[in-house]
């Protein structure tokens, strides 16, 4: 419900749309979801991002009502929905393989939820026409799913879900069946559509690009817990832990030793003092140092800030917008990504060149060994 301010303009309602409070779920003794909390505002798009087995699908299924939480509550618009069976929740889902009804045409698939809600024929027809136009399915609406391509089926799945005007849209790895180019096009289209319609959305994916392309906020899940939640930029630039850092982007991992004074040395020749924020719960002794490929800098001269030893260029690959350099540094193969533009300003690095590693200590993350 939107309130009006004195000038008559709409004020965004600050009341949360979805509240997940201390949700837990176990299967046969294995904890799938471990005390998760989440608050969503109306119109917000949030991504649950994680590797398989992290609990994201279980959490989504609990929102949809296909699984019951062992503990905790899920509330939609202030009302606890734990006890409401799946067919009475107004949360529409787009399934991974789209779950098309093979015996119904595109029109009938889209109309399915409307029939279930017992709307009258005219209303149903109007809404179906609306969805067909919105998802660019004109001309295909009398076909059967078997006669459609993957991308077309996905659009039908989205149309079917949106047709019922759900309180919330759930996407379960909805893009994983599409090939790369189509995926990116569809993600863009869907992102624009959802924002236009102001549909509150929870999407589940293991694909970092998908999460970044669509979501306002990302919740990184690991082992049933939400490891970090924030805007894509927050989560990427300020990873809360080593595991979150490693999950996004290409990372390099080094074995280092941290002294009592907080200095970290990495053989064969890096020495730096990491800021407190990056240390986490690690103490003196052996540590793991994680740093992104794009946070490493290659220089032809040793810099004064750190004691470095030289590395040798092993491979240089042109990736279009980026250049990837692989160095041999001691026993490590270090991967460095940098904008291709930058490479133009320097003398080209050939294989066998000696170079030096540099980086901002704030961009690494430390974690305990083992």
């Amino acid at each position, binding site marked *: 419900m939107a309130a009006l301010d004195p000038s008559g303009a709409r004020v965004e309602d600050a009341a949360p749309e979805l509240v997940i409070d201390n949700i837990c779920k176990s*299967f*046969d003794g294995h904890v*799938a979801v471990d005390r998760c909390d989440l608050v969503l505002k109306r119109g917000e798009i949030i991504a649950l991002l994680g590797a398989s087995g992290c609990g994201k*699908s*279980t959490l989504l*299924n609990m929102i949809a009502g*296909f*699984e*019951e939480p062992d503990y905790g509550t899920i509330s939609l618009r202030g009302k606890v929905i734990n006890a409401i*069976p*799946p067919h009475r929740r107004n949360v529409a889902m787009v399934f991974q393989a789209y779950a098309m009804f093979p015996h119904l045409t595109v029109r009938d698939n889209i109309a399915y939820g409307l029939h279930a809600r017992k709307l009258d024929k005219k209303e149903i027809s109007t809404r179906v026409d609306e969805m067909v136009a919105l998802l660019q399915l004109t001309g295909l609406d009398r076909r059967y799913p078997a006669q459609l391509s993957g991308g077309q089926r996905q659009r039908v799945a989205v149309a079917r879900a949106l047709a019922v005007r759900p309180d919330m849209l759930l996407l379960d790895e909805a893009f994983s069946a599409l090939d790369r180019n189509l995926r990116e096009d569809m993600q863009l289209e869907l992102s624009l559509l959802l924002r236009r319609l102001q549909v509150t959305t929870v999407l589940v994916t293991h694909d970092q690009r998908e999460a970044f392309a669509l979501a306002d906020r990302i919740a990184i899940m690991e082992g049933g817990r939400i490891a970090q939640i924030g805007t894509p930029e927050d989560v990427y630039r300020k990873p809360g832990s080593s595991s979150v850092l490693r999950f996004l982007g290409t990372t390099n991992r080094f074995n280092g030793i941290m002294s009592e004074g907080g200095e970290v040395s990495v053989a064969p020749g890096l020495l730096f003092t990491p800021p407190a924020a990056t240390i986490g719960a690690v103490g003196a002794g052996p540590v793991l140092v994680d740093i992104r490929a794009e946070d490493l800098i290659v220089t032809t001269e040793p810099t004064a800030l750190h004691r470095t030893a030289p590395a040798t260029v092993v491979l240089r690959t042109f990736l279009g917008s980026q250049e990837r350099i692989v160095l041999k540094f001691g026993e490590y193969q270090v991967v460095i990504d940098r904008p291709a533009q930058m490479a133009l300003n320097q003398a080209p690095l050939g294989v066998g060149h000696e170079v030096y590693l540099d980086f901002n200590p704030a961009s690494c993350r430390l974690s305990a060994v083992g």
Partner: protein
Amino acid sequence: MAPRSSHLSPGLPSRFFAAFIVLFLLGPIFIAGVVAFSSGNRLEFPIPGFSLRWFATALAKPQYIEGLTASIIIGVGNAIFATIAGTGAALALNHYRFRGRSLIQALVMLPIAMPAIVLGLGLLFTLAMYDMQPGLLAGVFGHAVLGVPYVVAMVTAALSNYDRSVERASMNLGVGPVMTFFKITLPLIRGGVIAGAVSAFLISFDNISLSLFITRGDTLPLRLMQQLLAYADPSVAAISTLLVLVSLGFMLLLLPLALRKR
């Protein structure tokens, strides 16, 4: 793999129902099997005592043994013809597009939908034209017709299950289509062909409606039926049970072989 969610699992009533169906399907077979071991003279259950006498009696009845021999000959004979015909047809229908394809497909599968008495009657009428009498040979050909749809179905399933490019590779390397079939295709679809042959055999072995017309009461089911009409005694159950046990034994023997070849 997340377990199936509770609202989709089959509930208790449907399990009870399934158990009832299992009982219904297996019951008469089980009871017949038990009565085969009866020491009594009549069809009664529970059986008064355990005995193998009816097995001995059954195996000593010449009409049963003749019937068994005839059924085996017809079964094996028809399986051979049905398999050759059906495999070729399945190949033609699956690999090639040609005019009349759907008609041929319908014709080839028609014997399943056509009541066997119609076929039997027709063959009775027609045999004389080919200078054939009702008997073993007629039985072989008549049953083969019945078996073709089964062979086609199984071979078609096997044909859709492998990658056709191996055949193209073979022909690309200089091997003609016929040799390619025998060297490449056939081994790949072997499972389907064998399944089809076995189906043709089983269908024929148990067939009554067709055998009635095209044999002279030669086959085992016909002989057993005559026995039941005359005087029903456990020898009928005994020989049937014996057949089931023998064939199960065969299957158990062949199973490790079939599994090993994978």
